[in-house]
């Protein structure tokens, strides 16, 4: 602990920006985020956008799984519900993109609450299987409800705009993504230190005790599902608008696993961890792609090995983190921070 850093009230202890130092670095980081699109190439901006969507979805899932302790193997389904809601509202009913985003979130939240209903009766393993089934049922609906979703042909989505200002390129879309990421992360960070956030943590740690101290499990579990799915819906809507097309292939089971991998690698029950995880898992396949191109240049014919390599590395990351660093990148970050905070006199 740093010298002279005494906290005298709970409010002080729960502050997000604990010191001037943190505020300074965060400010600098924001400046970097704003300068970034002016210096980066289209490819880097594409990756940045992808990271942004992943962060929104991951922060939501972490609220449900990391903070409330309810496992969801169906997060991709909610991402899909949001994506389809937005796409259908924009193309069929002529909604503007901006209005379709909250609706995407709300419909996804509604779907999440329906899936969350079993969580009141079953938990742990059984909930995990229930959400897994939900994933496949939603996937099936996306493909077969052709009158609404146009099946496997998918729906083309026009680019969003304000007045005459169009958001078509990666650079223009970056601002939308940045706005929603800051909003989403800020809300989640504040939520977890509110009454609701504390209730979530209480449910995770011991549902029986939580109920005894007066936490309404029904209400809070469903809220957790709703909020998490709202995030997923918004992430999905942004993602497919960025891609300009939505098909059922976008929301496979592996995407749900990817989201879970992000919060596990990032750190369960940590908002910062969700961000780390989202960045890490989005960058890994991109790095592999680069590697595969390098291999293609020097040893042609061997680059096919990188197709399954992605899955292997993915699985390895999950297993290794769970076995050796169950609290994820957030914990590593804390350790590094603590090392430098007292360096060189750590005792």
């Amino acid at each position, binding site marked *: 602990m740093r010298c002279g850093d005494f906290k005298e009230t709970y409010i002080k202890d729960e502050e997000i920006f604990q010191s001037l130092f943190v505020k300074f670095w965060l400010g600098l980081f924001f400046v970097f985020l704003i300068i970034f699109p002016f210096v980066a190439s289209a490819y880097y901006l594409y990756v940045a956008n992808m990271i942004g969507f992943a962060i929104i979805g991951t922060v939501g899932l972490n609220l449900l799984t990391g903070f409330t302790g309810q496992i969801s193997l169906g997060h991709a389904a909610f991402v899909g519900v949001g994506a389809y809601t937005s796409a259908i509202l924009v193309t069929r009913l002529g909604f503007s993109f901006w209005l379709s985003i909250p609706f995407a979130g709300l419909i996804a939240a509604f779907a999440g609450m329906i899936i969350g209903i079993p969580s009141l009766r079953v938990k742990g393993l059984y909930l995990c299987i229930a959400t897994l089934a939900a994933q496949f049922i939603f996937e099936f609906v996306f493909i077969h409800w052709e009158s609404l979703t146009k099946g496997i042909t998918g729906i083309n989505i026009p680019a969003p705009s304000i007045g005459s200002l169009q958001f078509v390129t990666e650079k223009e879309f970056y601002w939308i993504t940045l706005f929603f990421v800051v909003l989403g992360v800020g809300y989640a960070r504040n939520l977890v230190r509110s009454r609701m956030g504390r209730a979530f943590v209480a449910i995770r740690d011991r549902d029986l005790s939580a109920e005894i101290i007066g936490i309404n499990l029904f209400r809070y579990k469903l809220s957790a599902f709703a909020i998490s799915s709202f995030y997923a819906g918004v992430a999905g809507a942004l993602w497919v608008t960025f891609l300009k097309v939505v098909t059922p292939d976008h929301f496979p089971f592996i995407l749900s696993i990817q989201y879970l991998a992000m919060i596990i690698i990032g750190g369960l029950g940590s908002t910062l961890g969700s961000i780390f995880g989202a960045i890490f898992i989005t960058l890994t396949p991109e790095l592999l792609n680069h590697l595969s191109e390098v291999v293609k240049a020097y040893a042609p014919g061997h680059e096919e090995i990188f197709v399954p390599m992605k899955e292997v590395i993915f699985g390895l990351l999950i*297993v290794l983190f769970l076995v050796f660093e169950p609290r994820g990148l957030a914990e590593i970050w804390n350790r590094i921070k603590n090392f430098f905070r007292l360096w060189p006199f750590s005792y």
Partner: protein
Amino acid sequence: MDILIQVIVTGLATGGVYGLIALGFVLIYKATSVLNLAMGEFMTLGAFVCLTALLQLKAPFYLAFILTLLMACALGFVIERLILRPLIGEPIISVIMVTIGLGLILKGLMYMIWTPSFRTFPEIFPPKPLLLGFAVVPSGLLWGFVFAIIGTIIFLLIFKFSRTGIAMRATANDQQAALSMGISVRWVFALAWCFGAMASVIGGIVIGNISGISVYMGDIGLKVLAVIILGGLDSIGGAILGGFIIGILENLTGLYIDPLIGGGAKGMAPFIILVIILMVRPYGLFGKELIERV
């Protein structure tokens, strides 16, 4: 009417195969309380190993079969020791995710070794279908059924009468009590993984015979979740009975509902049944009832 009986008989035979894979899940769950979501990949790996032994090594079937069982046994031991043991006492999400991660690794490795192309087994079983008079059972399904029944009876007998089986049941019941009675819980865990892997590779070989193998065969493993939930997560008999019920229901859905909504309902049926069971009776037909009102 004829087609109805035929569909029910096919469903029964398919259900036998589901039951066999479900047995793998249950054996592991019963002793270690771990739901192994990598089961589908175990199954695929078993089928690939058996096929390689048959084609590359030119081994006769019984030898290839024994070789596959040995491989499964080793796989179970190694995985339990390296991956699952460090996670004892960790929250359930870690344990589930680690098996999913394991599944991804196995799938990727199989893709590298055997390429994603589709293969078929050479003829192992006599191709003659069984004529029952009122229905026809294709040879693959028939043999799958036979294997499933034999496998179940063997495992049931082991659990009921052998020393090891009793140790496993004791561990499932109460780990601490089992430990204090001198049972090596570690050994039981390792053995459970070994048995589970063996049951699933037999399932893999049978399914490989019926419909050919590819890397994506493992998806059946997820369908079998419906079977174990219906039968009860910790009931061996339930796994087999659940297999029959799901097999029949799945095929009936294919017959009656598919034409109504234009296909695809057959593959979906297990998951819908799964949700219904979870809502109505989460512990399944024969599972241990844990009543907790929170």
